[in-house]
């Protein structure tokens, strides 16, 4: 395996959790709900994935548990912002704080326990292709899911009736309600989808990226995923390129640290966070473009008038 191939492989591994979390949040935000709890749902997925893999000895069941618990956990947020119409910013923060706390409590028993890695699945024939084969067709199942989800979400949002309804809810909940769309039900489903995706992203961290449990192991990736959605101006395929760009920044700093170039490691570790700020500034600069792309009811509560 060449050095380029090795680097590209690590980029894919770093990008996959970002992609999974961001594509889920994209659907949530398209329905008009801003869930700042991605970090919390992700860390719940990470500990759930790790714990269930340990209990059952099967990392696939762990992955499934990560998705399910992520979705269930997002229901806390959903109930508050959708049924009780609480402030979405504050409630999302609460979800993150609670997720970090619960995962720490649950994970205490698993600190230092050797993890179970989700092994790559080689696709017959395709994985034999030189260079591209090992990169794209000999990956863990979560990589395939992440790519599949991007295509599926894009198709769903722009080619199906249900997707049109979801976007309508996100752009004008009063009109959607008047047309007979159940705004709250659509949003509940979008929130849970986002939760499941964030859970998968977390499971990727504790079963693929670094197969072990470390407290706060999401390390701000949930927040970077939120920034990715803005960066992608709420378009699925742009999330794909954004996630790989951010994955590359994360990996570049790791390689720079390994090479021991004269920059202190802390500065290199700060790169992904600084890059996020810079990208946000660049992308948001054009106010009109942002206004066109942002779902119009993003972050606004809805109380159906009966």
């Amino acid at each position, binding site marked *: 395996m060449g050095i380029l191939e090795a680097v590209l492989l690590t980029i894919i591994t770093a990008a996959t959790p970002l992609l999974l979390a961001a594509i889920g949040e994209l659907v949530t935000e398209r329905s008009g709900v801003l869930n700042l709890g991605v970090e919390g749902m992700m860390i719940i997925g990470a500990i759930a994935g790790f714990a269930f893999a340990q209990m059952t000895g099967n990392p696939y069941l762990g992955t499934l548990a990560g998705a399910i618990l992520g979705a269930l956990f997002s229901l806390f947020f959903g109930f508050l912002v959708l049924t009780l119409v609480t402030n979405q910013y504050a409630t999302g923060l609460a979800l993150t704080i*609670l997720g970090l706390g619960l995962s720490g409590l649950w994970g205490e028993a698993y600190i230092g326990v050797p993890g179970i890695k989700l092994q790559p699945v080689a696709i017959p024939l395709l994985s034999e292709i030189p260079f591209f084969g090992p990169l794209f067709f000999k990956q863990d199942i979560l990589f395939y899911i992440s790519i599949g989800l991007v295509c599926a979400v894009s198709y769903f949002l722009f080619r199906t009736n249900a997707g049109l309804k979801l976007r309508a809810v996100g752009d004008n909940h009063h009109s959607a309600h008047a047309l007979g769309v159940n705004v709250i039900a659509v949003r509940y489903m979008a929130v849970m989808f986002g939760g499941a995706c964030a859970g998968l992203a977390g499971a990727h961290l504790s079963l693929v990226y670094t197969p072990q449990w470390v407290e706060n192991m999401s390390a701000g990736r949930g927040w970077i995923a939120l920034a990715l959605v803005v960066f992608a101006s709420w378009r699925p395929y742009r999330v794909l390129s954004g996630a790989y760009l951010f994955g590359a920044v994360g990996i570049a700093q790791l390689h720079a640290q390994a090479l021991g170039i004269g920059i202190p490691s802390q500065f290199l570790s700060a790169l992904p966070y600084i890059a996020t*700020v810079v990208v946000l500034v660049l992308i948001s600069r054009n106010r009109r473009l942002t206004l066109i792309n942002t779902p119009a009811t993003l972050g606004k509560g809805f109380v159906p008038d009966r």
Partner: protein
Amino acid sequence: MRIELQRRDAPSRRMSLLSPLIALALTMLTGCIIFLVLGVDPIAGIYAFFVEPLTETWSLHELAIKAAPLILIAIGLSICFRSSNWNIGAEGQFITGAIAGSAIPILMPEASGAWVLPAMLVLGMLGGAAWAAIPAFCKTRFNANEILTSLMLVYVAQLFLDWLVRGPWRNPEGFNFPESRTFSAGQILPEILDSGRTHYGAVFAVVLAVILWLSLTKTVKGFEIRVIGQARRAGAFAGFDANRLTIFAFLLSGALAGLAGISEVSGAIQQLRPSISPGYGFTAIIVAFLGRLNPLGIIVAGTVLALTYLGSEAAQIMLGISDKIGRVFQGLLLFYVLSCDTLIHYRIRFAAIDRRPSKEIA
């Protein structure tokens, strides 16, 4: 059964006083369930968590030491949140404040005299305000989401502090531990009582909270903050500049977080370490909401949240359960506070799902 919300004609005054108390009660109730799940007697758990830290003099001092930074940060955040500026990077501003203020004792260890402490405090405030100015500038100039930028800068600040105490600011006589030199007498915030460790940070917190409360309720600036937060367009017609208010709110909350940072380092820790805050900047968000964004309420709320820090330590020692339980309680509390706030603006009705009462259109 379904839950329906009916908007109240006017916000309920009774509920706005009751809602934080209901939230506290619900948190304790949920806490009992968690203790049961963990196999701990819930009465003993609640006692260890919420009562035990209040029974001894030294622990009351610890309570004041922990409440001070929470209150200082939260009163600043209340100005931000009231004006719809979502500064959630106070943790980073706390750290940069601590770094800036510590520059004097670390770079000039011989410095002494009456000017040293005030200079440290001013530098601390400037450090916090400078860090907060970045997301404010990115928001007003480039329209960049302040939630994400302010949060990203927390990680950057943490890494910067880590670099300082392992690199250039490491104590030369410290056997290679990642710590700065310890501050000397004139560089340490004095204690206010003979009976314990409570330092002047607690005084700053209470005095500034009262000052801020007075200015919010009695000055035009306070009115401007409330108007822009509730109705941006109406504020614009009144000639209030939302961008200038954003900068003002961020600088003020950054300065207060920075003051909290330098007070903590100078008063309680007395040196710089890789980690100087047990998440004060994030917990202060809960404090701000539990205090209903009112500086006086925040004094009470800060004390309650400080109790969760001490309580989780006490529970760990007395009952052998993880101190992570404190974070769980904090998250639950914020959830309940937000839910109960719904009661202020809405009546909640439980209606049968199939027989929805039809309402005449007014």
